[in-house]
Structure formats: structure tokens, C-alpha cells
């Protein structure tokens, strides 16, 4: 028990009280309020109409009508594409920047910059790059003979355009995490494997990768949690459009709540998304505990 005896434990509880009280008021209470709204018909444009109890009608609309399921599909499709690229490029980069060569530390530092930039700024600079008629990207791909691509104005390309911006911002995160993990591994197994005459690729696949696995899984869940919430970049680039081509769950909730003023439906969709993200969060914590035990 150490020096923290019964009396001190009570005081330790007092230390914890402000955190719990603030979080309850500012997080749990709004969530419960969202739950309350999700059972009501609440039109924010007409605040004087009573908020009628509508039972599970909002949930029924969210779960059985097309648009929410469509936004779920878009969200997971975007997540799958961005995470794949972020991990392939990020892990590859980590292997490169951890080589003991002069200048590598500086390169690695510069590569970290994108993820510290406000997502709204990321959206704006990519909007500048993709901009119809004027954007630099179409000019440069024109130089190598590719016809202009309607990056953000066609349903066919808009999601790709968003994915590229997100991959640009978050690949450094995967690189950073993987590089840190690589440097904490002990060098002996590689040296032994290389001396035994295995190729570098084999050494990576059978010696390095298994050791990196716990860290990569934690990073994967962290990225998945963030990807699930993606909002700012899409808001700037396409606002969910054209049509509903890039409408992720966050954009669906935004549109229901602040374009159609259907707060009840927005709240019901929010609640469904809270349940999904709780699953991802639980998986992240499990992976963290596992890697702590492995250590």
C-alpha cells in the first residue's frame, strides 16, 4: 500500500474529483443530451415547436434508409485506402530514415511537419493544388501528357483527392511511430540473420516485422479512430459532394443537423457512430495492454 494510507487515499480521491467532475459536465452530459435528442423530433429552425417523443423513429431512419449506410460505406472505404497507403509508405520511410547516414535525422524531422498542421490548412492548400482550371497539379500532370483531372468536382475523383491529402498529412505519423519502435529493437537478431546469409527482405519479413507487430497494431487502431472522425479536410475540399460522393459519417451528421436542421436524426446518427468508435477504442486499449505485457 506504500505511504498512501486510507486517509491519503481519500485525499487522492479529491485530486481526482476535478477531472471527473469536469469530464462529466462537459462530455457525459452532452452525450446524454444527444441521446435525449435522438428520441425526439427536434427542428432547430423551428425552436418553438415542442420536441415530440418519437421513440426509435430517428434510429430507424438512420439505420434503414440509404444515406447513413452510404456514409458508413464511404467512411470505411476512405479508411481502408488511406490506412493502406499510410502504412506501406510510412513503414518503408521508417526503414529508410533510421539508416545511420548523415542528414537522415534532419530529413526525418522535416517529414514530421505535415501532421502538426491544422487539418483545415491542409484542406486549403490541397484545394489550391487541385483547384479547377488553375490548380498546379493538373498543370504538372499536363506536362507529362495526362489530360486534366476534375479532382474535386467529379464523383469519380473526389474521394481520391481527399485520400491523397489525408495520406500526405498522416503518413509521417506512421513513419514516426515505426521509426521510434525500430530504434528500440535490439540489433542482435538482424546481425545474426544477415550473417546467416538471409536477404534483407527476408530479414525484414521474418525478423523485424514480427517484432514491430504490437506497435503497428496500436498505430493502426489510432489511425482508424482518427480516420473514422475525418471531417475538416472534406469540409474544405468538397463539403461531402459532389452529390454525396464524399459524405462520410461526420459529414452526414453535419448535413442532417445544420443543413436540414433535423437535430433528432443527427443525434441518432451520432449515437450510432459513438457505438462504432467505442469498439475501435476498446480494440486500441486491448492492443496497448498486450504490447505492455509483451514488453
Amino acid at each position, binding site marked *: 500500500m*506504500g505511504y498512501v494510507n486510507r486517509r491519503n487515499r481519500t*485525499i*487522492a*480521491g479529491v*485530486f*481526482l474529483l*476535478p*477531472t471527473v467532475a*469536469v*469530464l462529466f459536465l*462537459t*462530455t457525459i*452530459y452532452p*452525450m446524454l443530451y444527444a441521446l435525449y*435528442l435522438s428520441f425526439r423530433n427536434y427542428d*432547430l429552425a423551428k425552436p418553438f415547436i415542442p420536441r415530440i417523443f418519437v421513440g426509435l423513429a430517428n434510429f430507424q431512419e438512420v439505420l434503414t434508409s440509404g444515406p447513413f449506410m452510404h456514409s458508413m460505406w464511404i467512411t470505411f472505404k476512405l479508411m481502408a485506402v488511406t490506412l493502406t497507403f499510410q502504412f506501406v*509508405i510510412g513503414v518503408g520511410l521508417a526503414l*529508410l530514415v533510421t*539508416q*545511420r*547516414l548523415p542528414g537522415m535525422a534532419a*530529413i526525418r524531422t522535416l517529414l514530421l*511537419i505535415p501532421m*502538426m*498542421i*491544422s*487539418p*483545415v*490548412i491542409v484542406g*486549403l492548400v*490541397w*484545394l*489550391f493544388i487541385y483547384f479547377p482550371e*488553375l490548380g498546379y497539379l493538373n*498543370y504538372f500532370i499536363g506536362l507529362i501528357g495526362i489530360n486534366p483531372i476534375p479532382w474535386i468536382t467529379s464523383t469519380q475523383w473526389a474521394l481520391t483527392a481527399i485520400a491523397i491529402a489525408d495520406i*500526405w498529412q498522416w*503518413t509521417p*505519423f506512421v513513419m514516426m*511511430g515505426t521509426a*521510434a*519502435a525500430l530504434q*528500440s529493437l535490439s540489433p542482435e537478431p538482424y*546481425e545474426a540473420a544477415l550473417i546467416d546469409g538471409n536477404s534483407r527482405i527476408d530479414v525484414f519479413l521474418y525478423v523485424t516485422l514480427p517484432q514491430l507487430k504490437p*506497435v503497428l497494431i496500436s498505430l493502426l487502431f*489510432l489511425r482508424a479512430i482518427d480516420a473514422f472522425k475525418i*471531417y*475538416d479536410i472534406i469540409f*474544405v475540399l468538397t463539403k461531402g459532394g459532389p452529390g454525396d460522393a464524399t459524405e462520410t459519417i*461526420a459529414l452526414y451528421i*453535419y448535413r442532417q*443537423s445544420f443543413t436540414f436542421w433535423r437535430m433528432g436524426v*443527427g*443525434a441518432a446518427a*451520432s449515437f450510432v*457512430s*459513438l457505438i462504432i*468508435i*467505442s469498439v475501435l477504442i476498446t480494440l486500441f*486499449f486491448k492492443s*496497448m495492454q498486450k504490447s505492455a505485457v509483451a514488453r
Partner: protein
Amino acid sequence: MNKISTRQATFVYIVTGIILIIFMIPIYLILASSLKPSADMFSRPPTVFFTPTLQHYVDLFTLRPFHQNILNSLIVTLGSTAFSVTVGSLGAFALSRIRHPRINDAAFWILSMRMFPPIAVVVPYYIIFKSVGLLDTPLALIIVYSTANIPLTVWLMKGFFDEVPEALEEAAQVDGYGIVEIFYRITLPLAAPGLAVCAVFCFIFSWNEFLFALMLTGSSAQTATVAVMSFWSSDAVQWGRIMAGSFIILIPGVIFVLTCQKWLVKGLTLGSVK
């Protein structure tokens, strides 16, 4: 890592060099476009050598009240950082010192509070703040940002407090110190670097935030990120101003990367990577 040959080193430099250039292009574009005269903004071929102008920066502060937006951002950011680090480090100390089989669950529960999608709670916040008259005030954003900053501080500071040897605190207790005195005279000074790390993370998060700032502020409490977005209007896009504003906003993040890279891993991976 093992030694590599000159040929392999050349390969490593070429590949990382190309990737580095690709990754730096958007950042270069922000800086270059913020200094380019509007006439050259989209010239073909792109002008690499142009006479830089500070006109867009001047416009930001004369034609637009961008200093007011920056001031709002600073009030919100510093307010939330101070509040979160104070409340969060108290909570972290408790979690670090209480011995209970389920204390880790409590820590995870607190951390999970920052992982929920902001969009899911923005409607309740909007309605609550509207009913108590806090819409479009810095205080509303200070409260909202603290819901993300406090859990992060609790989580990170717990790690720092765990490393302070309890023997020191026991010795102080023998000397007759109460637990509050032990906390701020002994434990907190020893974990001071942690406080700085948490403060920086809270600062960057609040400074960069957009969604809540967009929904919960109007003209008077508008922060810098929302203001920059507002320069984008369909009739005339002020790219020079957007880029000048963007560059100002990205400065704190870049300084952070260049100065405390060591802490970046810990903070951003929430300690899941050592």
C-alpha cells in the same frame, strides 16, 4: 542498424530525397503563395523567381481583423491549456498513486473521452451554449477544448508521476508534510518537464482546431483557423490572404516539431510506442 555499402547509401538518399521533396511541396506552396503578387499566383509556367511581397500579410491585418482572430485563438488556446494542465495533473497524480485493481480502467475511461468524434457532441454543445448565452464567446471554446486536453494531460502526466520515486514522498510524509504539500512541493517539480510537454500538446491541439470553432463562434470570438477559411468565398477567392493566414497558423506546429521531436512520439501515440 547494420552497416550499408556506398551503393545502398546512394539508393537510400535518392528515395528519401524524392519523398521529402514531394512531402515538402504543399508547405513550400503555402509560403511561396503567401509572398507572391496576386498576378503571379497561377501564372503558366509557374514563376519560381518572383519579387516577394508582404502585401497579403499587410492585407490580413488592415483589410481584415486578423489580429483580432489571432488574439481570440490565443485567449482560447492559453485558457484551455492552463485549465487543462491544472485539472489534468491533479487527476493524473491521483491515478498514479491510488492502488486499486481497476485503476487502469479508470485511466482508459478518461482517455477515451478525447477519442469520441467531435461532430457527435457539437449539436448538444450548440444547444446548451445557446441556452446559457455562451455561444460566440471564448469561454465556450475553452470548455470544449478542455474536454480533449484534460484526458490527454491525465494520460501523459500519469506516466511522468509514475516515474517519481514514492520513497521521496514517504520521506516527506515522515517529516510531517500533508499530501497536498507533497504534491506541489515534491512530486510536481520533479515532473515539471511533463507539464511542459502537456502544455505544448494542449496548445497545438487548441490552436489548430476548426470544427468546434466554426460551429460555436460567430464574428466576435472567431478564431484564426475559421477566419482563414472565411477568406474562401465563391465570388473572389483571396488565395494570397488564405496562404498568408495559413502560414501564420502553421508556425507554432513547425516550431514544436523542430524543438521537441522527442516528445512528439509519446504524445501523439498516447504512449503506445516507447
